[in-house]
């Protein structure tokens, strides 16, 4: 039979009369949890932003024709040399067209697929941007701009002009920001481009595209799909890439494999394309957790120390409680209750401080040319972290309280009272 009101009453009196130790222990937990919340919110916010930066520009599945050597060389097919050892030197890539064969039927098949949110055709062309006598190498991507806006975050990256302006202008171009700067061009100007074959076309700049990744902004521009087809002198079914967005991203890998088999093209899924990026995120998360857990363990040791000292000071009280009929368990609960009260109080204060600091960081200006859409530091306000924080506060204080309280439970009252 445990009388909680008595136990909590004694625990409360201990905490209140030892205000200094209580405050020290509580602040230990508060700072541990506060730092954890701040750190994890900021780090995951940052991770999320970087993920968006790269991942949102990557389609879930990217289909294209890859230039590569044939997997089976003709000689292997010749039955008479079946048992021979064949050496083929200087293997060249297989002569292959860049366009995806039967692109339009593939697109209409994909658009009917139940797991596909959308599929957009693209045409990548190697071109030169002409500025006076200077030729800048680069590429021009022909897109269905309205579909792209629906399926990707391209709209965020159009820093000047609108997607509609491109749609409405058959000779329009969304010029890469780096290119615009190099050639001192802005909206409304004309830019001349030259194909690899040497044909020159003037295009009107209807917008500026800035992805935040300089390597892309310095070479890449967008135009309408049929504009690029016309520039290259190709027909309407000439498409080099198909980008697919899925409803269920987890399906991307098996679906890429089946598309590869079905249409005999290369299909890269999002995880394959960004494997190294995942690794980076995971390691950053790992560091965040390592630092947070260290902070919480330090706080836990603080509580352990203070409770140990308290129990040492309260030896006689413990002995008398036991002499007057409190069991070892009761005494243990008295000290456990103190640890848990410190944990609850410190933990919730920590959540508040963590939230406050996160809010502060969230409102700190952070402007960089690389990230046109970001104005303040990114912070991830995710309830899960607050839950983990308070859970860890309770668990660590529980453990920190358990060990000393177990000692209190085992104190022999006779030894203390008789002073031996």
């Amino acid at each position, binding site marked *: 039979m445990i*009388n909680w009101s*008595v136990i909590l009453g004694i625990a409360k009196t201990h905490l209140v009369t030892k205000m200094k130790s209580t405050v020290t222990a509580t602040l230990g937990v508060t700072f541990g949890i506060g730092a954890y919340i701040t750190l994890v919110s900021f780090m995951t916010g940052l991770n999320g932003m970087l993920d968006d930066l790269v991942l949102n520009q990557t389609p879930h599945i990217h289909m294209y024709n890859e230039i590569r050597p044939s997997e089976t060389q003709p000689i292997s097919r010749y039955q008479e040399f079946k048992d021979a050892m064949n050496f083929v030197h200087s293997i060249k890539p297989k002569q292959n067209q860049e366009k995806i064969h039967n692109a339009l039927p593939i697109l209409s098949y994909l658009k009917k697929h139940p797991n596909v949110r959308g599929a957009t055709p693209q045409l990548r062309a190697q071109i030169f941007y002409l500025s006076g006598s200077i030729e800048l190498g680069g590429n021009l991507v022909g897109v269905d701009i309205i579909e792209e806006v629906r399926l990707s975050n391209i709209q965020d990256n159009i820093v000047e002009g609108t997607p509609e302006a491109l749609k409405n202008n058959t000779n329009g171009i969304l010029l890469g920001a780096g290119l615009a700067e190099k050639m001192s061009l802005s909206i409304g100007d004309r830019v001349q481009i030259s194909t690899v074959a040497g044909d020159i076309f003037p295009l009107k700049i209807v917008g500026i595209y800035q992805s935040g990744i300089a390597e892309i902004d310095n070479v890449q521009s967008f135009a309408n799909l049929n504009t690029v087809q016309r520039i290259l002198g190709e027909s309407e079914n000439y498409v080099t890439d198909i980008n697919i967005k899925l409803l269920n991203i987890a399906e991307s890998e098996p679906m890429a494999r089946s598309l590869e088999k079905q249409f005999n093209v290369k299909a890269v899924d999002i995880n394959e394309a960004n494997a190294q990026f995942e690794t980076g995120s995971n390691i950053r998360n790992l560091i965040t957790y390592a630092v947070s857990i260290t902070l919480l363990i330090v706080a836990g040791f603080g509580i352990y120390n203070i409770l140990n000292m308290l129990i040492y000071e309260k030896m006689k009280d413990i002995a008398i409680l036991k*002499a*007057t009929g409190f069991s070892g368990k009761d005494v243990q609960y008295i000290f456990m209750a103190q640890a848990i009260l410190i944990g609850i109080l410190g933990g919730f204060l920590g959540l508040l401080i963590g939230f406050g600091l996160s809010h502060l960081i969230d409102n700190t200006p952070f402007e960089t040319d690389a990230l046109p859409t970001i104005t303040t530091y990114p912070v991830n306000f995710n309830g899960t972290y607050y839950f983990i924080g308070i859970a860890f506060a309770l668990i660590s204080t529980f453990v920190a309280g358990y060990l000393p309280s177990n000692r209190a439970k085992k104190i022999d009252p006779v030894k203390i009272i008789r002073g031996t």
Partner: protein
Amino acid sequence: MNLVLEAKNINKHFHKPKDFHVLKNISFGVKQGEFASIMGKSGSGKSTLLYILSTMDTDYTGELSINNQLVTGKSQRELSQIRNKNIGFVFQFHYLLSEFSVLENVMLPAKKLAEKSHAEIEKDAHRKLEMLHIGHLAHQRASRISGGEKQRVAIARALINDPTILMGDEPTGNLDSHNSENVFNIFKNLKEEQGLSLLVVTHDEDFAKRTDRIIQMEDGMIIGH
């Protein structure tokens, strides 16, 4: 007459630093309403015996019964309940909890017992304090009152659950003669007015002489009672 406390063949050894037979075949009983004292020189084992009788020390052989109920071999949990309900204890030092008020100190064992409501316990505690003429101290901090007063608070605490027997380990050992007299009179009154059984270990011969019975101990044996 009814025995409230009975010890049969109690033996105890101290194992450290070397084996020492501290209590040898102790058998005796305390009757209902009896005021008994245990006397003996230092090291005669009288305090050791008292702590065994109080159920706090369980490292012994033999049999101990309280209210005709065998307590030897019970779990620590049951023993603490027995202490809580049946045994009041007064020590040489008061051992009050210094952060709590006098009233709270007195109420604690009753709150642990939890047989009465908070209001009833508070009323009881006030009555016990009044009976010992320290009712006016009820709301003082336990650390702010004099030594004699503290000992009276400790007695009130020992009485709060209306125990079967009150045990004292030199309850007057730390008090001046005036306060000692006071404590003795309180004990005497408790016996006479409420029929409480008392068992007190003491060095004080004058104190012992005025009790109903003196149990004389020497070298771990009872040599006369």
